[in-house]
């Protein structure tokens, strides 16, 4: 009875606490008082607005549903050529961030550890004074700007700013820049797109095209199309993510040896003399050295030794690649997530060169670059690696300006990074949340929410220029300021007498739009795909788009949500490749220890899910809950392991395991997954925020070794060794049993599930 009574007391106590919490939650809801009234006594009038998504570079056009001008739901715009009505989980959930309770409602200043709200003018004054001081001491080199914005116009604004003021260290770490880095590294400009009209064989190196790429929804459609045409996709990837599972061939391979695999394929081409002689003759300087080098070092058996892929498989892929008329060996940012990423990329570029980049294409006289004025490609922007070395070095950093980047969360070696950050005298962040990075800031001037901003997004990855316009669907809730405006006013203050052709950021956007207006190529996104006849008419200069003035054009642009040019011409992509350029960067053949694992060690292979883009998922509870739902693991880190490997370590399915790396111990729920590389322990990246959002799970990067690509400084995702310290017996026999049932499901049984 005594026990019972105590337990009962506990229960009641707990439940009461729960009640209190619930009560508090309602109060915590973020919404300006003035607006609440509308919410309660509003007429519930529904309206729709078009805007664009900036969660990833794709620039999908969104259809926002508003009730009394409160955005409540988001859908895809069916007329947009980018997403054709589709939308990803990220975009669907994105509305919630406006109302997020822990969103900053105005500028805050860090007063010995406490963030105290201050007025915008005060905040701005602090910022400009600091910068003025630095400029007066002319320590321009000691100022670093880090931004991860996916909008190229914003990036352009940052470029302009740092150029005008003379800050050399702008770190532009968005997807596009990173993906094109390897090309820039060998001083050629990147191809615009994979030409799916021509391409008949796609060899994909580590890119999750349908999940995390520069245009996921477009690739999702195209991959299906490509395969329905009977063409093959081969993916070289350490993890069989759902998107990769769509490809016909999956080559499980650690990123460290992508290069070796690529050159192994190159060997087959060279041996069979099936490469594009004409191209290599014209554009590939030092080709013979390359040829010789590959023939000497990458014969199939050697390649097998280096990669662990059976030589006949390499031969098979090689033959498929060489016999394709327009093959494409594709990579993107993802390839850089390991210590020799840039090298891998160069090797893949070389492989493409052998087939003359026939799978790729460029847009003929693309007017985007003209739109941007100074495009971010045009100025040499430096990589994250520099900031790292600068931080670790004894050279001091005077100021750090962070915009929409949470690099502390997205990088390994976080402890060191945090220590170094806290030593910087002045950090200003434009983040809307006090995240892991901005918690070190001395000043936070929160940017608008995505739904309060204006912006212009575009992307060539479809082979046709498409521009989606992000317009504010709701008047700004709080005392937030668009970062673009801050930069502009800073320019005026820091450099008196500067000539800037625009007053504020929306002006800047309008001018970009004005270029479209004057150029007048293409159509608004408010109509379906043009027919062949229309295209023909266009060719002979027929143009239906008539606008009396720019303002009319602007209005209809906002209404249509975007502009695209289905009539743009393509041209083949012929870069000048130089063997020395490729292979003088960094040593060759790093024989990786990762294949010969030390006993009772596993490889910690961090993979990314499409629900999370660069660790920004945490503020969307619906996504956090869904994150592990198809393994029915909720709000917790899980680790997928191959059953055979698991048996070697005698750990049960769904048991809680304690894992240890050099950085420390952490726990995860072990999941049997027969599709995991033997010797791998696949853990997802995205959970484990501690400072904001629903803090749950573990961030595996915090426990992985601080290796990174020499050139780009990108975190390495699969080169940490981990060992299983202890394991609880499989926590739920029922589930364990059912899972094993699944795994050894016979044909008959699987049919019983199907039909």
């Amino acid at each position, binding site marked *: 009875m005594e026990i019972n009574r105590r337990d009962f007391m506990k229960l009641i106590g707990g439940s009461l606490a729960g009640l209190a919490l619930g009560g508090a939650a309602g109060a915590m809801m973020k919404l300006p008082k003035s607006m609440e*009234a*509308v919410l*309660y*006594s*509003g*007429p*519930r*009038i*529904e309206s729709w607005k078009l805007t664009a998504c900036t969660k990833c570079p794709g620039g999908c056009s969104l259809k926002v549903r508003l009730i009394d001008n409160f955005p409540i739901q988001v859908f895809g715009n069916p007329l947009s050529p980018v997403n054709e009505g589709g939308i990803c989980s990220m975009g669907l959930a994105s509305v919630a961030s406006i109302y997020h309770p822990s969103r900053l409602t105005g500028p805050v200043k860090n007063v010995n550890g406490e963030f105290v709200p201050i007025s915008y003018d005060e905040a701005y004054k602090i910022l400009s004074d600091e910068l003025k001081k630095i400029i007066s001491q002319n320590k321009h080199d000691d100022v670093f700007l880090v931004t991860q914005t996916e909008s190229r116009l914003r990036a352009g604004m940052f470029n302009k700013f740092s150029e005008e003021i003379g800050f050399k260290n702008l770190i532009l770490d968005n997807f596009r820049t990173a993906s094109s880095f390897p090309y820039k590294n060998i001083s050629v400009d990147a191809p615009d797109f994979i030409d799916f009209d021509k391409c008949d064989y796609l060899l994909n190196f580590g890119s999750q095209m349908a999940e995390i790429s520069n245009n996921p929804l477009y690739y999702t459609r195209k991959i299906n199309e490509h395969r329905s045409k009977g063409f093959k996709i081969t993916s070289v990837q350490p993890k069989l993510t759902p998107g990769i599972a769509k490809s016909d061939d999956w080559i499980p391979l650690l990123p460290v040896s992508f290069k070796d695999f690529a050159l192994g394929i190159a060997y087959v081409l060279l041996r069979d003399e099936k490469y594009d002689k004409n191209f290599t003759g014209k554009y590939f300087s030092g080709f013979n050295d390359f040829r010789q080098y590959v023939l000497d070092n990458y014969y199939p058996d050697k390649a097998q030794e280096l990669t662990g892929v059976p030589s006949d498989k390499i031969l098979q892929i090689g033959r498929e690649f060489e016999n394709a008329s327009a093959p494409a060996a594709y990579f993107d940012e993802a390839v850089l997530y390991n210590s020799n990423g840039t090298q891998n990329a160069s090797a893949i570029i070389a492989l493409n060169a052998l087939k003359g980049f026939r799978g790729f294409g460029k847009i003929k006289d693309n007017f985007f670059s003209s739109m941007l004025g100074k495009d971010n490609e045009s100025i040499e922007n430096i990589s994250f690696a520099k900031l790292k070395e600068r931080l670790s070095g004894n050279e001091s950093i005077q100021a750090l300006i962070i915009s929409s980047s949470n690099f502390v969360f997205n990088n390994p070696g976080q402890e060191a990074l945090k220590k170094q950050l806290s030593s910087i005298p002045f950090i200003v962040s434009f983040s809307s949340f006090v995240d892991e990075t901005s918690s070190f800031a001395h000043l936070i001037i929160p940017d608008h929410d995505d739904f309060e901003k204006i912006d212009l997004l575009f992307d060539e990855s479809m082979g046709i220029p498409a521009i989606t316009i992000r317009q504010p669907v709701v008047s700004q809730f709080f005392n937030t300021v668009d970062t673009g405006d801050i930069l502009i006013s800073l320019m005026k203050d820091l450099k008196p007498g500067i000539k800037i052709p625009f007053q504020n950021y929306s002006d800047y956007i309008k001018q970009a739009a004005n270029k479209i207006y004057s150029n007048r190529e293409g159509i608004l996104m408010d109509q379906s795909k043009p027919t062949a006849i229309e295209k023909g008419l266009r060719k002979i200069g027929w143009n239906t788009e008539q606008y009396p003035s720019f303002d009319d054009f602007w209005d209809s642009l906002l209404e249509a949500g975007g502009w695209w040019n289905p009539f743009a011409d393509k041209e083949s992509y012929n870069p000048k490749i130089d063997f020395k350029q490729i292979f003088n960067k960094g040593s060759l053949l790093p024989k990786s220890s990762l294949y010969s694992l030390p006993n009772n060690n596993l490889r910690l292979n961090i993979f990314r899910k499409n629900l999370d883009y660069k660790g920004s998922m945490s503020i969307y509870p619906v996504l956090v809950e869904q994150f592990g739902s198809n393994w029915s693991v909720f709000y917790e880190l899980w680790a997928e392991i191959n059953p055979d490997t698991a048996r070697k370590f005698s750990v049960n399915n769904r048991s809680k395991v304690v894992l240890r790396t050099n950085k420390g111990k952490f726990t995860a729920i072990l999941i049997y997954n027969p599709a995991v590389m033997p010797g791998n322990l696949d853990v997802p990246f995205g959970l484990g925020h501690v400072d904001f959002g629903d803090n749950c799970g573990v961030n595996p990067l915090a426990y992985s070794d601080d290796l990174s690509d020499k050139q780009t400084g990108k975190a390495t995702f699969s080169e940490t060794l981990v060992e299983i310290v202890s394991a609880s017996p499989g926590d739920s026999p029922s589930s364990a049993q059912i899972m094993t049932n699944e795994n050894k499901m016979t044909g008959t049984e699987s049919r019983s599930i199907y039909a």
Partner: protein
Amino acid sequence: MKNKILISLLSLICFAASYYFFSNRPSQHEEFATVSFSHYVHTKEHKIKCVNCHRGAETQMRAGIPNTDYCSMCHSTLINPSSERETVIYQIVKNNKTIQWRTYYNLPDYVYFSHKRHVNLGKLDCTACHGDMSEQTSPELKNYNPIEMQLCFNCHEDKGITTDCGNCHH
């Protein structure tokens, strides 16, 4: 015998508790301004149609109740300072306070009644459900028609319209 009484009492308490916790009562927000609105003055004297103020009635799911800035279209100037009602609303408009209208036709949140469907498509007159409001000189204190499901059923059955639950409860 005592235990039995006690038990029965307790079970009673349980049910009272359950009812209390399950019942969902409309929320009141007292911090807003209130006015004593006269439908008579607006509709009879000034010949304003219902839909002029309840704008959603023909086009939206909800008829909607005008908010302050809508009142300000007429009440931004004080025409007749002697009338204290008018001064009240004038003050509210001037200080741009929000009026907390008392809604007497509160549907539970699991019932979906579309005004558009009934007024516009069904060609129903407002009075059919809300009665003749034009005589109300002060805020009404009770519903003209008690809104309960039977009311819907009567009309739907008379007119031979579907009475499928899913159409209103989703």
